[in-house]
C-alpha cells in the first residue's frame, strides 16, 4: 500500500480535532470542579443509599448501596421497555394490516388511530393516561372485582399471586414441550421438502404445550393455588389491598402510553413493508394454488419483513429512550432513581450522568445488535 499525505491528511486532522475537543472539555471540567471543591470518583456507588424506592424487581431498601439503587432503576427501565415493545409490536402489526383491509370501517378506524396517537406529544399522552385516567379510577374500597379476584383502583392493579408447589417440575415440562415442538417442526419441514407431505404441525404443537404441563399436574405433584388480594382498612376512608401482586398505576400508565404511541409508527412500518412487496408476487403465489393465508404467510410476509425490520428497530430504540419520561409520573426508572434521587443525594452530577448515558447507550446498542442479527437471518440468502 502506498499512503499519500493528501489521502490521510484530512483524516489525521479530524482525529486530532476530536481528541483536542474532548481533551479541552475534560480539562475544563477538572479545573472547574477543583475550583469549586467538588471531588470526582465512583466510590459513592458502594455507600448506603438511605432512600426507598416504590417499586423494585429485586430486593431493595435504603440500607442497600447506590449501585443496588442503580440496578433497581435499570431493571425497571428494562421492564417497562420490554412490556412496551411487546404490546407495541402486537398492536402495530394488527393496525398495520388493518390499514390495508378492504373493509372500509376497519381501514378508516386504523387510519384514525395512527393519525391521532402519533401526532400528540408523548409526554402529554403520559400525563393524560396517568392524571386524567387515574382520577377516573375508583378508590380501593369502591372497586368492582374483575373476574371476582382482580381489582383496578386508583392505587394500582391488584391481581392474585400464583403460589406454586414443585414449580421446577412444571418449568421442565414446559421446556420439554418447547424442545419437542422444535424437533417436530424441523422434521415436518424435512418431510415436506423430500416427500411433499404436510404434517399438521400446529395441532401437534398445541397438543404438546397443553398435555405435557397438564401431566406435570396430574402425576408430577405440581400444585397451583392463588393468593387473592384482600381489602384492608388503614383509616376511616383509606384502604388498600393486601396479598396478591400489585402493579403500580405509574407502570400501567407509562407502558400503555409508550405502546399506544410507538404502535402507530410500527403500524406504518408494517403497512409500508407489505405494500413494498410486488403485486406480481401475490398473483404468482395465488396462481400456483396457495390460499390467501398461505400467500400472506409464505410469500408476502417473508419479503415484507426485510423492509419492516430496520425501521422497526428504530422504533424499539425510541421506545426504550422515551421510557425516561417516567420521571414525570413517579415511575422509578433509571432516570428517576439514579439520575434523580441518587444524583441529588450525592451531588455526583458528572459521574451519575455519565453512567446513565453509558447505560442507555449499551441498552440501545444491545437492541440494535439483536435486531441486526434477526435482520440478517431473514435477509435473502444469496446462493
Amino acid at each position, binding site marked *: 500500500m502506498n499512503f499519500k499525505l493528501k489521502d490521510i491528511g484530512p483524516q489525521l486532522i479530524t482525529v486530532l480535532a476530536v481528541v483536542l475537543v474532548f481533551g479541552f472539555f475534560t480539562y475544563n471540567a477538572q479545573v472547574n470542579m477543583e475550583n469549586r471543591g467538588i471531588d470526582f470518583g465512583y466510590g459513592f456507588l458502594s455507600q448506603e443509599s438511605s432512600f426507598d424506592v416504590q417499586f423494585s424487581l429485586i430486593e431493595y431498601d435504603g440500607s442497600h448501596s447506590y449501585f443496588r439503587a442503580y440496578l433497581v432503576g435499570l431493571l425497571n427501565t428494562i421492564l417497562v421497555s420490554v412490556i412496551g415493545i411487546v404490546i407495541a409490536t402486537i398492536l402495530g402489526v394488527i393496525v398495520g394490516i388493518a390499514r390495508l383491509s378492504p373493509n372500509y370501517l376497519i381501514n378508516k378506524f386504523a387510519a384514525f388511530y395512527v393519525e391521532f396517537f402519533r401526532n400528540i406529544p408523548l409526554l402529554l399522552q403520559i400525563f393524560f393516561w396517568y*392524571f386524567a385516567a387515574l382520577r377516573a379510577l375508583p378508590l380501593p374500597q369502591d372497586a368492582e372485582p374483575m373476574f371476582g379476584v382482580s381489582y383496578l383502583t386508583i392505587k394500582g392493579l391488584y391481581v392474585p399471586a400464583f403460589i406454586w408447589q414443585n414449580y421446577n417440575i412444571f418449568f421442565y415440562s414446559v421446556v420439554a414441550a418447547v424442545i419437542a415442538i422444535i424437533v417436530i417442526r424441523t422434521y415436518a419441514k424435512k418431510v415436506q421438502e423430500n416427500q411433499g407431505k404436510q404434517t399438521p404441525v400446529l395441532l401437534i404443537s398445541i397438543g404438546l404445550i397443553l398435555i405435557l404441563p397438564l401431566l406435570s399436574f396430574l402425576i408430577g405433584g405440581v400444585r397451583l393455588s392463588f393468593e387473592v388480594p384482600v381489602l384492608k382498612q388503614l383509616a376511616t376512608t383509606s384502604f388498600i389491598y393486601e396479598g396478591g401482586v400489585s402493579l403500580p398505576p405509574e407502570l400501567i400508565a407509562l407502558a400503555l402510553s409508550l405502546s399506544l404511541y410507538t404502535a402507530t409508527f410500527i403500524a406504518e412500518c408494517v403497512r409500508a413493508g407489505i405494500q413494498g412487496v410486488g403485486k406480481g408476487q401475490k398473483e404468482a403465489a395465488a396462481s400456483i394454488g396457495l390460499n390467501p393465508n398461505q400467500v400472506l404467510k409464505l410469500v408476502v410476509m417473508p419479503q415484507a419483513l426485510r423492509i419492516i425490520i430496520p425501521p422497526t428497530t428504530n422504533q424499539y430504540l425510541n421506545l426504550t429512550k422515551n421510557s425516561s419520561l417516567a420521571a414525570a409520573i413517579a415511575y422509578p426508572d433509571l432516570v428517576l432513581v439514579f439520575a434523580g434521587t441518587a444524583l441529588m443525594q450525592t451531588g455526583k452530577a458528572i459521574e451519575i450522568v455519565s453512567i446513565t448515558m453509558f447505560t442507555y447507550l449499551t441498552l440501545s446498542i444491545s437492541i440494535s445488535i439483536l435486531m441486526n442479527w434477526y435482520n440478517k437471518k431473514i435477509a435473502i440468502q444469496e446462493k
Partner: protein
Amino acid sequence: MFKYLKQLTSLVAMVAVLFTFTTETMAAKKSKTLKNTQKKGFVRCGVSQGLPGFSNADAAGNWTGVDVDVCRAVAAAVLGDANKVKFTPLSAKERFTALTSGEIDILSRNTTWTLSRDADIGLTFVGVNFYDGQGFMVRKSSGITSTSQFKDGISACTNIGTTTELNMRDFFNSKGISYEPVAFEKADEVVAAYDAGRCDTYTTDKSGLAAQRTKMSNPDEHIVLPETISKEPLGPVVRQGDSVWEDIVRWSLNTMIEAEELGITSANADSMKTSDNPAVKRLVGAEGELGAAFGLDNEWNLRIIKQVGNYGESYKRNIADTGILPDRGPNELWTKGGILYVPPSR
C-alpha cells in the same frame, strides 16, 4: 531635553505600574461574582417552580415570597435596585447543578442546610431565613389525627431529590411501618396525585404543606398533622470559593432580621438616620463604614430596608397575610420567643 524625557518616561511607567497594582488589589477585594453581577446589571437568582409564600410568580410574572426577598435584598445592596433580579425557576433536582455550574449566583429556594450538602458538593449555606420541619398532610375524612395512627401499607406522595425522601424513610423505619413512597419530580404533580387519591398522605416541609394546601381542589378537606419529624433550616446558598459574595448574601439576610429587631421598617428607615442608638445608625448607613469590606457604598443596608423591608415585613406580606402560616412559631425574633438570632452588624 532628551535626558529628561527618558527620566520622565520611566517615572510615568513606574507610576503606571504602581497604579495598576493598587487598582488591582482594590478590585481583588471585590469578588468575581460581585464584579460580574455589577457588569450584567442584575442578580441571577434560583427559586422554586412555585411555592406560595416562598417563591411564586403571579400571572404577570412578578415573583414574591420570603425566598425571593433575599435575592431582592442582595440586588438592592449591590445594584441599588431591588427589582434588578433575574429569577430562574428550578426543580429540586436541578437546583445545585444550576448553582455550581454558574447559571445562577444565589440559590434561594427553600433549601435545607445539611452537613453533606454544605461539605460535599461545592456549596456554602449562608444562613437560615426560615426554620421548618417535615410534616404530613392527610384527608380529614380519613379520621387520622396523628402519625401514630399510620398503618402498614400507607402510601406517601413526595418530591424526589429532597431531604424529605430520607427523613420519610427514617421516620417509617423507626416506627416499623412499611410504606409505599411515590416520588415525583415536580411539586405540582405531587399535589395532583395526592389530590386524586393516589396517596394516603403527602409529606414535605410543613411550610410547603401549608402553601400547597391552598392549591388543592378543596383545601378544607385536608389537614396537616401536628407531628414534626425533622429539622429543616431553610436558607440561601452560594457557590463555594467566593467568600466576599458569600458575606454579601449572608449580611443582606442578617440586615433584614436585625432591622426588625431594632424596629427599623421600610417606612421609617430614613428618619432612623438621626436615631440616638448607634446600632440603628450603623444599620441605616449613618455611622461606620459597614459596606467598605464588601466593596460596597455605605447605604447598602439602608437600601435593603427601604426597598425590601425588614424580615417581619417580608414574613407578614408573604406568609402571614396570605393565610399560609399566620403564626410565626420559631421564625419569631429571639426577643419574642422565637429562635431568629443574628450576629450584630458592626
